[in-house]
Structure formats: C-alpha cells, structure tokens
C-alpha cells in the first residue's frame, strides 16, 4: 500500500480499429489516497481521443464535459452578478 498521496495520470486505452483507421481513447485520473492507504478518492474522466485515418493523418479531439461547464458558468455568473449588485448597492447609498 505504498502509493503516493496525490497523483494525476493520463492513460491510453486499447486502440479500436475501424477498417484502416484507428481510434485511441485517453483518460485522465486524479487520485488522492489517504495516508496509510485506508481509502481515498478517484476521479476518472475521458480526456481525448486520437483518430488516425486510413491515410495516416492524426487528429486529437478533446472530450469536454458540457454539463459541468454549464454548471460552473452558472455558478460563476451567480457570484459575479451578486458582486455587481453589491457594488451598485454600495455606490447608490
């Protein structure tokens, strides 16, 4: 159980073949292990796919989590909007 407390690693999965073309999935893992190894936290998410066409052309396409982006945007908008309201309120008094 001698693992590092915090680690971020990128991994490549097994390539998938579609005729002559090839698709390689990549994932990113954030791992936090409690000292002593008695538990921890793992966040594993898809990061990108590598597409290699039959002609040999390679393209990396990132996999974005749109739901999380929208959630974070709404949170940021709420904080920013509240800050603006607070500043306007202070200026009007």
């Amino acid at each position, binding site marked *: *159980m001698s*693992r590092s407390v915090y680690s971020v*690693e990128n*991994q*490549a*999965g*097994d390539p*998938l073949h*579609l*005729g002559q*073309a090839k*698709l390689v*999935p*990549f*994932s990113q*893992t954030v*791992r936090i292990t*409690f000292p002593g*190894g*008695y*538990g*921890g*936290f*793992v*966040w*594993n*998410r*898809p990061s990108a*796919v590598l*597409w290699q*066409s*039959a002609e040999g052309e390679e*393209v990396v*396409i*990132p*996999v*974005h*989590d*749109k*739901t999380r982006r*929208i*959630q974070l945007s*709404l*949170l940021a*908008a*709420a*904080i920013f*909007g*509240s800050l603006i*309201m*607070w500043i306007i*309120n202070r200026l009007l008094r």
Partner: protein
Amino acid sequence: MHDTTANITPNEGPTSGHESLILIEDTMDKFIATADVEKVYGKPIMNGETLILPTAEILCAMGFGVGSGSGNQMDGEEKNQSEGSFGGSGGGGGGRVLSRPVAVVIASPEGVRVEPVIDPTKIALALLTAAGFMMSMLFRMMRGPRNND
C-alpha cells in the same frame, strides 16, 4: 445518471484482524481499479461502418479504518476469567461510486466527432441554485444593514 453505494464491514461475523486487512486490501485494489481507462470508455457499438463509443466520468470515494484494544480485568468483575485481560478488534468503512455519461464518440470512415451528453436536470438544479443565491443577496441588500440594538 447512475449512482451506486457500497459499504464494507470487515468485521461482520467472527473474522480475525488479518482477514479484515485482506478484505480491506481487496476493496482498496477494486477502488484503485476504478482509475483504469477501460472504466471510462464503454463497450464500442458497431452500426454498419460507424463505431459508437460511450464515455463516462467516474467519481469514487471510500474510507475505512481498523482498530484494536486491550485492557486488564476490572476489580468488580468475576475473577474466573482466564489471564485477567481482554482484547478486541474491529473495523468498518464505506464508500460511494458515481458515474455520469459525458459524451459519445462517433467514428466512421469519413472521420470522428464527439457529441456531448447534456444533463438538463443538473443544469436546471444549477440554475435554480444560482437564481436562489442571487435573490437572497438581493433581498439582503434591499433590507439594508442589520440593526443590532
């Protein structure tokens, strides 16, 4: 969305401390296995010449602990207990695994594209939370400074 809850109780029944540790180590290994790339990408689906690859995000948290203790026989207790000392050990833990679809990778001989999976429920909840936060801030500002007299 798919939620699962897992709980482990290493000392269910007459298990020794060593067995508990083995069980904990096995559980820890399963927990570490969630970090594998194969867990994030689902089974590829072939539809004619098109390959569909579902992707998901996995969040896994768990914790457990074990303990043992021993003590001497107290004065008021029966003396017929052998050796006159007591000991015991126990442990427990819990964890949670959350997985959520993120996107679908669609590959065909013409090319590849990534279609996002949007969860309207989560967005609606975030919207309501953001609106509630702003409304509470607005009401607090309209009410003015609190008078402590």
